């Protein structure tokens, strides 16, 4: 017998949220769509159709920014996810040391993005920075302001320093949620540490890892303040990522039409990746 009562009036309870989302997201998004098909002057506008889209899709500067962005996000995931798992596995399971580790891990997450950029700008300086001066002192010619590889490595290292904690904390919570019975069973079977990780911990971490990967991908894909403060997008354009290119276009050059078209392409990419991750999570949950 189906006792489930359906009351569609409950949907009215979400109206305040819908109104808020409309004002903060939907109306601005609609405005961006309007701008993307027009050439806007001070008091007048001309309908240009898909012209801005054709222009930005064939713009080599944007194409190279997009490639850099994907490479950066890929590199971030390749480093931060395994490192986060490793940190979580090495952390104490309980006691004061566990609490201390959690506090230390949470600290980088509390620092604002632009401050992180400033910290690393000073830290990496070849003349006065602890890391920069040390590397030059031991004979490594390191200068993030003039060498693109050094700039890339510094931006990557900065992101790893800032955000690996998030992955580690997520994994730690996932590991703590595994019932002790699994470990006892593994002990009876004389399973090796690797077998415990491969067949118990890793499968149980799947859900939190998908969330961690999604969060880190989205965040790294939209990175702006940290590389902007650290390298200003240079040397040349070597660390100019998508959001920085977009900002230059919209605010620096005041090309509102192409910037709007570019924003929508950017939005669609983010939407596609979010949907892929959401589908993966749902699919994995259904398979369980």
């Amino acid at each position: 017998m189906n006792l489930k009562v359906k009351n569609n009036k409950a949907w009215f309870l979400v109206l305040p949220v819908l109104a808020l989302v409309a004002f903060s997201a939907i109306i601005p998004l609609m405005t961006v769509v309007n701008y993307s098909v027009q050439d806007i002057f001070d008091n007048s506008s001309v309908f240009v159709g898909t012209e801005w889209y054709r222009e930005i899709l064939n713009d080599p500067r944007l194409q190279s920014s997009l490639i850099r962005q994907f490479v950066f996000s890929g590199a971030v995931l390749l480093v931060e996810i395994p490192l986060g798992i490793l940190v979580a596995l090495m952390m104490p399971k309980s006691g004061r040391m566990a609490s201390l580790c959690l506090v230390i891990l949470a600290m980088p997450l509390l620092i604002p993005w632009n401050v992180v950029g400033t910290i690393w700008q000073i830290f990496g300086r070849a003349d006065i920075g602890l890391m920069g001066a040390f590397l030059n002192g031991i004979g490594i010619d390191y200068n993030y302001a003039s060498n693109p590889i050094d700039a890339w490595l510094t931006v990557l290292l900065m992101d790893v320093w800032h955000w690996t904690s998030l992955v580690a904390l997520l994994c730690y919570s996932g590991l703590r949620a595994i019932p002790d019975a699994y470990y006892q069973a593994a002990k009876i079977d004389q399973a090796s540490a690797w077998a415990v990780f491969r067949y118990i911990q890793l499968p149980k971490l799947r859900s939190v890892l998908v969330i961690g990967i999604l969060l880190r991908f989205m965040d790294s894909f939209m990175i702006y303040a940290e590389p902007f403060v650290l390298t200003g997008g240079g040397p040349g354009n070597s660390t100019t990522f998508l959001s920085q290119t977009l900002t230059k276009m919209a605010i620096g050059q005041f090309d509102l039409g192409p910037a709007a078209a570019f924003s929508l392409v950017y939005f669609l990419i983010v939407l596609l990746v979010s949907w892929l991750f959401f589908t993966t999570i749902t699919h994995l949950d259904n398979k369980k």
Partner: protein
Amino acid sequence: MEWMAWSLVTAIFFIGIATLLIAMTVAEIKHPSVERKGFLPIIATTRGDRLFIGLLSSAFFHLGFLALSESSVWIPFGISILWLICVLRWG
């Protein structure tokens, strides 16, 4: 509303999207959707999933066409309508 820089084309576009969402809501209330597996790989989908997949893939198809071809945008539009019908019906 002047600051939103409305044009006739974008107004029609958004009215179309809004109409589609209202129609889908009414359809969902009248005939609740059941997940099923069609030609789309791996996942079972509801009617709303198929609409979303159809619209998102159409958007990327339009962008790809604009990047690679100088022809009229009506060509990808027509193909996208057919694709959307196929996804909704058999996806």
